[in-house]
């Protein structure tokens, strides 16, 4: 055994001690509480998406003529195809939900504040990438609703002043939905967005490592004893348990509520009601509440405010002298998000 270890050591000159030093980031005590571990959950689900996505790509054929039939084949004929597709679908749902929960935790604990403003903005980029990858993935099925959802989304993009037309053309690969649109969605979904997200994740985690995880201390905690514990194996086990629970949850959801096929896209028949995937319900309801350009611009303004929130927060606290103003604004924001999403879901189809 020593001979083998030495052979490997000679060719990969990294010692176990050095590796442990690099990976064994001191973890603050508050992360012993599992609900503070939501940052690892979307990362874990992202890995699930990559693995199941690669398996789906083996059979998926990205063109308007073949997309629907290939997804139907995956769902109905390929061995375990229905399971892989269902896990991919539910992992996407859970990933978006956990990203939002993670962002809520970061927001309400003020973990975005100096010096972590840039990392908050990278997180925002990751959120937008996650929503976009969800949208493009939904459109790849070439179902009636996904087709018309994409068409409506492109038309909404068109309402953005100055750059709207360009955004629509970039999204649809032309002025209208055409034979290049599905391949365009596929490239975005399977290559550009995942690569971008991996890069952003690397920077996101690197910055966390450089700044250290923001430390939160509960009122009843004393200064006695160490304020940190080891990443490996303590925190690793916590993350592993969450991962296994998630895998069980995904399997249950995939089995009980498997992904099914809606009607094939028919460009000549507009559905009575067009709805996007659930994670755009709040946006969709907002756009319905207000007309045209105002709705789009106001939505853009909200995204801008979210992006630059660390700086706005600083300014607000200085002007209002209310230290926790962001918490109250956040509560209103979450209620708004929940209300708009639920409202759109409850409107009769």
């Amino acid at each position, binding site marked *: 055994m020593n001979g083998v270890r030495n052979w490997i050591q000679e060719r990969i000159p990294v010692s176990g001690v050095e590796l442990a030093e690099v990976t064994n980031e001191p973890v603050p005590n508050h992360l012993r509480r599992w609900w503070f571990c939501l940052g690892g959950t979307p990362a874990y689900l992202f890995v699930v998406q990559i693995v199941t996505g690669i398996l789906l790509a083996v059979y998926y054929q990205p063109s308007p003529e073949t997309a629907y039939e290939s997804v139907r084949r995956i769902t109905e004929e390929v061995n375990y195809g229905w399971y892989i597709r269902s896990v991919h679908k539910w992992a996407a*749902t859970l990933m978006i*939900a956990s990203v939002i929960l993670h962002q809520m935790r970061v927001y309400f604990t003020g973990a975005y504040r100096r010096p972590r403003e840039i990392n908050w903005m990278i997180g925002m980029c990751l959120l937008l990438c996650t929503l976009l990858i969800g949208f493009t993935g939904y459109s790849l099925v070439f179902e009636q609703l996904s087709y018309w959802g994409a068409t409506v989304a492109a038309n909404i993009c068109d309402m953005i002043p100055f750059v709207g037309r360009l955004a629509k053309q970039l999204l649809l690969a032309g002025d209208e939905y055409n034979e290049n649109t599905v391949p365009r969605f596929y490239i975005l979904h399977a290559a550009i967005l995942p690569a971008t997200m991996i890069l952003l994740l690397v920077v996101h985690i690197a910055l966390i490592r450089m700044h250290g995880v923001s430390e939160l201390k509960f009122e009843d905690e004393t200064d006695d004893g160490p304020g940190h514990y080891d990443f490996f194996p303590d925190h690793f086990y916590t993350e592993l348990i969450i991962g296994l629970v998630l895998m069980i949850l995904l399997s249950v959801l995939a089995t009980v509520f498997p992904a099914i096929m809606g009607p094939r896209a028919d460009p000549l028949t507009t559905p009575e009601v067009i709805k996007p995937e659930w994670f755009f319900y709040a946006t969709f309801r907002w756009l319905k509440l207000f007309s045209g350009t105002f709705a789009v611009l106001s939505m853009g303004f909200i995204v801008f405010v979210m992006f630059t929130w660390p700086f706005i927060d600083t300014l607000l606290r200085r002007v209002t002298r209310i230290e926790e103003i962001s*918490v109250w604004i*956040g509560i209103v924001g979450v209620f708004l998000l929940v209300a708009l999403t*639920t409202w759109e879901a409850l409107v009769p189809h």
Partner: protein
Amino acid sequence: MQLRTKRTVIGLLGLLFMLSLVLVQALEVAHRREQAGLAAAHVIVPASSQSCVTCHGQPQQSPGIVDHWEDSTHAQKGVGCVDCHRADPDDVDAFTHYDAVIATVVTPLDCSRCHPKEYQEFEGSHHAKGGNILASLDNFLAEEVEGFRADEGGRHFFNPHSPTPGRPEIDEVNGMASAFVGCQQCHGSKVGLLATDGTAITVDDLKPDESGKPTNLAVLDKLEKDEDGRPKFHPGTWPNTGIGRINLDGSLGSCSACHSRHDFSPRRARQPENCGKCHLGPDHPQKEIYEESKHGVAFRDLKEHMNLDAENWVLGQDYTQAPTCATCHMSAHSRQGTPTVTHDAGQRISWSNRPPVSAWLDTDAEGKIVTETDPDVRRELVVHTAEQKRMNMKQVCLHCHTNDYVNSFYKQYDDFVVLYNEKFAKPGQAIMAELGKQELITSTQFDEEIEWTWFYLWHHEGRRARHGASMMAPDYSHWHGMYEVAERFYIELIPQAREIAAHAAKEGKQEQADAVNAVIDEILARPEHAWRKPEEAADEE
């Protein structure tokens, strides 16, 4: 704010968010299952129809129609009872029912409020003109030969000759009952409202304008109404879902003939059993012929894979397993630029095999068959060519068959039809015409044996043969078809015609007898009849 408080805020908001997601996902999953046809669709009861659904849904009312409606696409889209049954107070059959002005019969004109394209196509179709049988030989058979047409002020009564045990009150029945419960339930008839004198008030009396409103208002005073002011229907004309029904508003047809009320199921209309209500039996067994064909065999085997609930049901996209009646004659297919269903079932039919002699279906602007033989005149008259209709059908065939296969099939079919026309139909027609011309038979139909023989030959056996050939059913083409045509022609029609001529000669009508025999001789001298031995021909003489 203490960290513990923030933790509570995060926990509560996170829980709220997750609960909302569970609700949203539950609704989403339910919606997807509805879309995929795995769960009953969401029913939207419009406010105007809420009380109809509540009241008629009760067990002592008519819960069946409510159940059927709840399973319909109309219910999913919020199209309720009043949307279809609503009427204008000026409509002849309108009445007020719990504050809503409605009519019992929903006509194609009513359906056209939402389905104008389907209405236009259907009104131009042969189906819509099914009621034209009212003046045909078949109807004479049902009304007079089978029944009793005592035309006394529009009442066709029949008095039984003996009492019916247990039913002493039956002293008069409708003499045209056979036509009403038979012919007219498929072909349709004039729907009539009951007049105070017991007769039927029909479209002929009402003379409706384009919007369906009656222009002859004088006749409205004769309407018989119940205590609620509801006009009564003439029981001889209603119920009636015949496809060529002639409605009070002047529109033709009944959409529910194929799209059964009240679920208006496209799925059902796509299946051959639906057409089999009328297209079956000894005279036009299309349903049985289809079942015998490979198409019908494949359908029975693969029905569950045919996506019959698909929204547009496009051949080549939604299914390819087998064609049904609807597939070939009406449904959308992927070779159309824009896959579109037609409600004119004649747009893909090139031969009419209904008359004694099959007719090539070049039709004029009114959809009538052009019989003109002069090529130049014919060219001017023909608006819709049979060749184009055949091309339309071939586009369907080509989803599963090669060009050569399809063209060869049509060659076989044309050969068969022309062989039947020339060897048996036209000769039979000529013999019957000569007998009539020489006054050796009466002008009354079905009062002589040879008239029944001739009717069997073309109306039953001849149609079976031709329909069998049109749908690739060999047994119907031959044993139920041409075999029986040949037997009827050689063993019954010719001997009976010779016998009539012989009787005529004995009665001193030698010239008339010779004329008939000359026609028969000329026919039998043709090469296609030369297989018969001379002595057999002599025996016949």
